[in-house]
């Protein structure tokens, strides 16, 4: 189990330098090679507003069906103009490659008649190496 985490962190570290802060979600593209039965991606949701918002992170497949992934944290409050890392671990589920969308969602002004949910989705491609 420890080896698995070491490998996951290692694969995440390969992607991390691509990330930057102060965006709604970075990176928005990524390709990860993993030696385990899952691959990990670290994304950075950002809050462009001056007020605190509630942010949710979800993982979908190519057809926008939810994917059972481990997201840490999946729901959180993000301070204005802030950004924070979110670790997403996606299982291959027996496949050798997997394409997923990781989406950051928020409704900055809830409770109104026609409210807008802003969703930023990144496309990520995991390759399993044996």
């Amino acid at each position: 189990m420890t080896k698995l985490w070491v490998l996951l962190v290692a694969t995440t570290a390969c992607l991390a330098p691509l990330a930057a802060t102060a965006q709604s979600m970075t990176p928005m593209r990524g390709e990860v090679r993993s030696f385990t039965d899952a691959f990990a991606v670290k994304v950075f949701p950002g809050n462009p507003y001056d007020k605190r918002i509630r942010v949710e992170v979800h993982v979908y497949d190519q057809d926008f069906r939810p994917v059972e992934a481990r997201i840490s944290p999946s729901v959180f409050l993000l301070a204005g103009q802030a950004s924070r890392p979110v670790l997403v671990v996606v299982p291959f589920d027996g496949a050798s490659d997997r394409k997923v969308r990781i989406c950051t969602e928020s409704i900055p002004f809830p409770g109104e008649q026609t409210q807008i949910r802003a969703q930023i989705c990144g496309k990520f491609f995991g390759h399993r190496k044996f």
Partner: protein
Amino acid sequence: MKFVRAAIGAALLVGCAGQTASAATGNVLFNGTITATCTLTVNSNGTMTVSSNLQSLSSHNAGGSAGSVQVDTTGGVQLSVDPVTTTTVPAADVTATTWTPTFATTGAQTISETGTATALTVPGTSTAAINLAGTKSGTNRFSAGNYQATVTVRCE
């Protein structure tokens, strides 16, 4: 003898004067990669009003207003709206409503009003107007009460 020494010294000085100091030059390369980025900032939500025949509840109707979203991007992304699935209607409204979300952009890139996913190829800031229209067909009418719908604007 003194004259010979002076002549040799002068000749050496003259010989050295023509020599330039040797220096090496090299180029330092800088590389930078910008990946696709997109920031959505909701400026305001929209407002829907009902038409005189009570069959349209829309932000396009008189008194209604579109929602506004600022889009900042490097290009290489796609903007879309999802079909509306989350609505709240008054208890008296038991008939079906067809909800149609659309968007149009101005600014860095102009997109005419559409409900179809559209590529944002021009880097910069655009403003998207988000509209929502609910329609009822046949003899069905909108009822008195509060309606609420959520439009998902996606940048990917």
